[in-house]
């Protein structure tokens, strides 16, 4: 299978990035050091090429109503100019993907989805389209996407764009860079303040080069994964998959059962969950995906879904899917790391508090 390349691929190679296959794409996994890239985002600003992600547009009178019908979170209740994170579920309540719905203007909605799920999502959404007065288009091949993340993001981006108000978190604004249209949203996947900027390939390439000339740190997928895990954000294929419901993955808050109708409502109404997604922190040892989680009787009660060394805490941190009736009341579990059991504390708060608005 040939892998796809973003329009910034040559820029990444020039910067000395290590390239790895990811979701069918050749993507930069790191440039210099994962640690330096994570700290750049926590303390200053870093930029990620996430052009592999998918963009769908829904346009027409029923755009908001259709978006509201296909996802579990509340789209119609959000004002124009807002972005809404949501699971996309089947009738049986299992998760097809997680995505962000951007309400650009009345009758015009952008949906950004995971790269690995573009075809699956588009085919699904298209199959539910009948009866709604709106057009659905997959524009993934037309758009590049940068994520500029970190506390300095706003002061860096503001002078570069035609106009950029001090947007609220999860808001979106249509602006321009060097006369070319861009969509700038105050969203991201790092827990820090920052923006995701959509535009044509040439526009985004010019913006990337501009950010490089301003010494913004280029960051790869490895740093992105550490950053999202430190703030406890789920990742499709790890915490989320075709078998689990939003409730299994701690996303019950994004299921709005008060909505009149949406796909999966009937199945999700009893809040079905077989698992609890927990955050684990270890004093010793680094938890990795697939490692078993045990209780004090050495019984396997779950699995690590994502794990890493936290750059900020310098401790092993993880998310784990645990059988809902097996979560120990003392909130201490064991992680089996190479046949050795390491104690882990269940924690409710994110490992790291991001600085987003």
């Amino acid at each position, binding site marked *: 299978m040939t892998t796809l390349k973003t329009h910034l691929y040559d820029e990444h190679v020039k910067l000395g990035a290590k390239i790895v296959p990811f979701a069918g794409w050749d993507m930069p*996994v*790191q440039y210099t*050091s*994962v*640690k330096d890239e994570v700290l750049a985002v926590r303390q200053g600003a870093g930029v990620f090429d996430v052009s592999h992600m998918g963009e769908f547009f829904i346009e027409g009178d029923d755009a908001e109503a259709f978006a509201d019908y296909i996802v579990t979170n509340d789209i119609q209740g959000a004002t124009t100019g807002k972005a809404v994170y949501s699971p996309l579920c089947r009738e049986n309540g299992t998760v097809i993907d997680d995505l962000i719905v951007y309400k650009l203007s009345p009758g015009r909605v952008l949906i950004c989805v995971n790269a690995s799920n573009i075809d699956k999502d588009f085919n699904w959404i298209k199959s539910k389209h009948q009866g709604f007065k709106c057009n659905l288009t997959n524009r993934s091949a037309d758009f590049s996407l940068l994520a500029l993340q970190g506390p300095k993001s706003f002061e860096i981006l503001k002078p570069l764009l035609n106009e950029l108000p001090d947007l609220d978190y999860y808001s979106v604004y249509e602006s321009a860079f060097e006369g070319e249209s861009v969509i700038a949203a105050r969203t991201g996947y790092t827990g820090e303040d920052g923006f995701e900027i959509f535009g044509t390939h040439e526009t985004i390439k010019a913006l990337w080069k501009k950010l490089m000339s301003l010494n913004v740190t280029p960051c790869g997928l*490895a740093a992105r*994964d*550490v950053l999202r895990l430190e703030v406890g954000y789920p990742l499709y294929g790890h915490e989320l998959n075709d078998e689990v419901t939003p409730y299994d993955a701690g996303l019950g808050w994004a299921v709005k059962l008060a909505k009149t109708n949406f796909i999966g409502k009937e199945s999700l109404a009893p809040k079905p969950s077989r698992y609890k997604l927990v955050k684990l922190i270890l004093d010793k*040892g*680094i938890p*990795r995906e697939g490692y078993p989680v045990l209780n004090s009787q050495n019984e396997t009660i779950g699995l690590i879904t994502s794990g*890493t*060394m936290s*750059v900020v805490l*310098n401790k092993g941190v993880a998310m784990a899917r645990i059988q809902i009736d097996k979560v120990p009341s003392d909130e201490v579990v064991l992680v089996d790391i*190479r046949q050795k059991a390491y104690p882990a504390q269940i924690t409710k708060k994110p490992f790291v508090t991001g600085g987003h608005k």
Partner: protein
Amino acid sequence: MATNIPGNLKYTKEHEWTLIEGDTVTVGITDFAQSALGDIVFLEVPEIGTNLKSGSTFGVVESIKSVSDLYSPVSGEVVARNADLEGSPEKINEDAYGSWLIKVKINDAAELNNLMTAEQYQEFCNSSH
């Protein structure tokens, strides 16, 4: 990459370096390996007295995002482990050849013939990566 390959050491295809002094072999990972791994955050090496077999795994080195096995270049008994690296494995990134992992008292000197010279290792790195 992989320009730092001291001539006085011998190397393995698993990117370990060895310093041979009599019947004691000091083992570390090469500059190429530390660079490929990235920020090293965890190291697990065997206790003193452990018997190692050439080619089998003897420990683990972890970077922020990856876990890699360490393979013993020789057979023999672990006679020392580098206490300096406990709690600060990142020293391997800073100085791969100054950061030895273990010392092994070898059983079979003939195994040393399997190790690569600096020139051979340079060529190996160039051809395989």
